[in-house]
């Protein structure tokens, strides 16, 4: 859909845009972030410092960025998608050489105010470039091998760079997120069946390669897998995170131990309790009801995105909206599965709740794109 066609139809301009913002979505995002503030406040023992306060400021910054992105017409974002993608690749290469090392992996560039993680940024730029690609591509060519391979390369390039860091969790999310956009764009089922089959093969290869010369993962990653499969083998070592996390979660019961009453978090049995494992604190203090409520909030965000996408007319808008939603889903689903002992510990934060800058800002930019697509969708003349 070209600018001319937009001009024929009615697209809000100027201050009118404010009225067309999807305010319900804004409200939902704020509610989720609010849950995060509450938990960070609780974990710090009833204090804003050291986590809740900076987190609130970051979310405010995130909201501001979301609105900036939202008020820029969506076709602008489509036109710069390739540029954004290229830039994020450059940043990934840059951290490979100059990035800081944290948790044994190269991950961030220190910008002073925030630590920029290019791997997070690439999640959004990947969605943008794929959406732009399928917007440009003749729909009848979607499932032709050549065009599928190009899309795959677009996904694999940043994935490979992230894997080198080595950040297995983000690499898998990039792969899954990119795959979701391809699926939405209508790539034939057959490809997905093949990939899933190959995935099973890779997992087998990874496990078989262990201890041989061509071992595919780092030793610490194997230990995490071992600990995931049976946390009891090493309750004080590699299995510690999972065991403690499950205990905290399970002991929450139906309605939880009450705000700021979680013994596991209080007594520091929980590791990384303000970042990746923050959900366990929520589940311990507010129980099943609290956990289910957060899940409901997340589900509503997804539903709002899907409904919004259905009303859009441009392929780019639809794919970006659904792609952002799919990434968002992957974030929280993998994180929750991890803390419940259903997935290995791979270092994925709980979106908008976990303490941390890059992931939150990037997500808010993503939702900015969703809003932009929503605001700038053409409407029939009333």
């Amino acid at each position, binding site marked *: *859909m070209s600018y001319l066609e937009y001009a024929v139809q009615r697209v809000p301009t100027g201050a009118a845009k404010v009225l067309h913002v999807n305010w319900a979505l804004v409200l939902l995002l704020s509610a989720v972030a609010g849950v995060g503030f509450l938990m960070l406040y609780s974990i710090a023992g009833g204090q804003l410092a050291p986590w809740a306060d900076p987190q609130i400021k970051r979310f405010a910054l995130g909201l501001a960025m979301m609105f900036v992105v939202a008020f820029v017409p969506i076709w602008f974002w489509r036109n710069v998608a390739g540029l954004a993608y290229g830039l994020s690749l450059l940043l990934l290469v840059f951290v490979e050489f100059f990035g800081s090392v944290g948790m044994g992996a190269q991950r961030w560039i220190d910008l002073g105010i925030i630590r920029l993680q290019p791997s997070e940024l690439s999640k959004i730029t990947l969605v943008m470039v794929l959406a732009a690609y399928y917007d440009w591509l003749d*729909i009848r060519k979607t499932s032709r091998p050549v065009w599928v391979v190009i899309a795959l390369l677009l996904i694999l390039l940043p994935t490979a760079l992230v894997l080198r860091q080595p950040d297995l969790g983000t690499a898998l999310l990039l792969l899954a997120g990119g795959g*979701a956009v391809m*699926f939405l764009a209508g790539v034939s089922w057959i490809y997905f069946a093949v990939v899933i089959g190959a995935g099973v093969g890779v997992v087998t290869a990874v496990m078989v390669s262990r201890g041989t010369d061509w071992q595919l993962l780092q030793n610490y990653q194997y230990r995490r897998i071992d600990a995931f499969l049976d946390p009891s083998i090493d309750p004080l070592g590699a299995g510690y995170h999972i065991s403690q996390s499950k205990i905290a979660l399970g002991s929450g*019961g139906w309605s939880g131990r009450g705000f700021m009453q979680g013994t596991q978090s209080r007594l520091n049995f929980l590791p990384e309790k303000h970042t990746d494992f923050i959900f366990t604190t929520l*589940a311990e203090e507010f129980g099943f009801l609290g956990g289910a409520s957060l*899940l409901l909030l997340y589900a509503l965000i997804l539903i709002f995105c899907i409904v919004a996408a259905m009303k859009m007319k441009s392929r780019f808008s*639809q794919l970006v909206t659904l792609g952002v939603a799919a990434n968002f889903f992957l974030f929280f689903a993998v994180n929750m599965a991890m803390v419940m002992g259903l997935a290995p510990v791979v270092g994925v934060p709980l979106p908008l709740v976990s303490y941390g800058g890059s992931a939150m800002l990037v997500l808010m930019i993503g939702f900015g794109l969703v809003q932009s697509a929503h605001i700038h969708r053409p409407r029939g003349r009333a």
Partner: protein
Amino acid sequence: MKPPRRDTEESARKISRRALILGGVQAMAMGALLFRMRQMQVEQADQFRLLADENRINIRLIPPIRGLIHDRQGQVIAGNEQNYRVVIVREDAGDVEKVLRRLALLIDLSEEDVARALRDTMRNRPFVPVTVAERLPWNAVAKVAANAPALPGVTPEMGLSRHYPLGPEFAHVVGYVGPVSEADLAALEAPEPVLQIPGFQIGKIGVERHLEGVLRGAAGSRRIEVNAVGRVMRELDRQEGTPGRNVQLTVDHRLQSYVMARLEGESASAIVMDVDSGDLLAIASAPSFDPNLFVRGISVPDYRALTENEFRPLADKSAQGLYPPGSTFKMVVALAALEAGIVTPDERIFCPGHMDVSGRRFHCWRRGGHGRVNMVSAISESCDVYFYEIAQRLGIEGINDMSARLGLGQRHDLPLSAIAAGLNPTREWKQTRRGEPWLVGDTINAAIGQGFVLSSPLQLAVMTARLASGRAVAPRLVRAIDGQEMPGAADAPPLGLDQRWLNLVRRGMDEVSNHQRGTAYSTRIVEASHRMAGKTGTSQVFSITAEERAAGVRSQEDLPWNRRNHALFVGFAPADAPRLAVSVVVEHGGGGSSAAAPVARDIILQALHEGTPPLSAYPAPQRNRIETMQRELIERIERSTQGSRGRA
């Protein structure tokens, strides 16, 4: 080109369809998460609640008790002593610096200690206890305990720490332990959790390092109950770990003490080895250092003093030090020549004091020459020209072959750090390392243990033991582990040398000490039952330059210390039924017969008598001087053992 509008609508419909499918999958996944949550939080809640309560019961590792190291008499060389220390946990302390300042008012803490503790707490994760001070007296610990409310996060702890009661005597052999470093952890595939106990120490060098696996043992664990703020309430049960195994070495601490005292004031090394079993009774490198300093964490000035000392106290000269063996190498050349049949025992070679080979003049140490010498007199008088001649006939290959059979140029398998391999130079070696072809002059230099040949005192001791026993004796340092005897060299295979040639070389060595013209005649042992056979060696570090000779520098004493010759002596005793071999190297000592032979004689007599030898063992004119020296040495030994015990 633009696709027609119908396509666009169809594509939108397709995306919507796929979006719904994906949404469905997502819904299912969320359903699974919800189900799992319900399962854990509703159905299994009681079970997890129980576990959560049990979580207040903490499991802590108990470091294993490190195995002791004894000498052959059972004297403890490396032991463990009670050690009170104070640790701090960052997240319990809150303002770490304030708490440390308060602590410094109670116990003796230097500004440096505070800074280090502060740095360590920041470097570690917040819940890791960091040691603030160690080896505190009991009253300091009591003060800390009494002021606990004002010192959040600070706890006194008791543990064992390594102690070396003999101080510097065995520093190079036994080595020392120290805190686990990042480098240590990185070197391990899967570090045991016990290594992460704060203050846990592992062997850094020497036996402590090389027998780490034997000495360490396995960690135990204890279950303790902590209250809601994490303070330890009581211990519920305790599972002791497996203590490390005790190691008994072949060394004799009394002999070692004597050797160390005898070498005092020199930069030297001495080794005493049993020629039958290969047991190393003493391995000394002087000067030494106090390993206890390293266990505590050596201070910068102390460390600088050790590294800047010209005598290099940190280096283990006995196994790591390499020296041109000088004339002590002549037995190798002699045996090789006899084996090859290129010289007969009776052949006499004329020594005019020098030999000219391809336009270069090689001097004998005796400028006037030895006249006509045969094999035995060439060894006893250490005639260089004789050996230049037979080495030329033999070639470097024959020399190297015998050198290797006698244990030179190879690393002997001992639990010591950085054992030097030495060098038996070959043609290929010189070509690849120096890019120059092998010259006849190189063979001639090798004939008298100069030039490229390098050996360690340990290798020279092994060589002497092999010459004395005729068997391929290997050195042994570990006698037993947990009372179980380690295999020794008691049945070492014969060297496969002709007994006639061995006897001839031994006779030459006997005459070195016991023939009037022998180079070590003045340091003979007159006691018939303990007669010593040996060989002196003087290896050049720098040759005296023409200018220096012109300026009148004639004797070694006129040269600065670090340009004097190394003094060497190897020997065995009793000469006719050898029991012990000895090797002595005195760095820049001047001459083998004047600086090394007397030391070797005193050491071997001390070893054979297992104590102070009678004066009747020495030649009559020397007895007064020896008596004074013996008295001084006994005092020196007493002083040093008291000194190190006093520090304990």
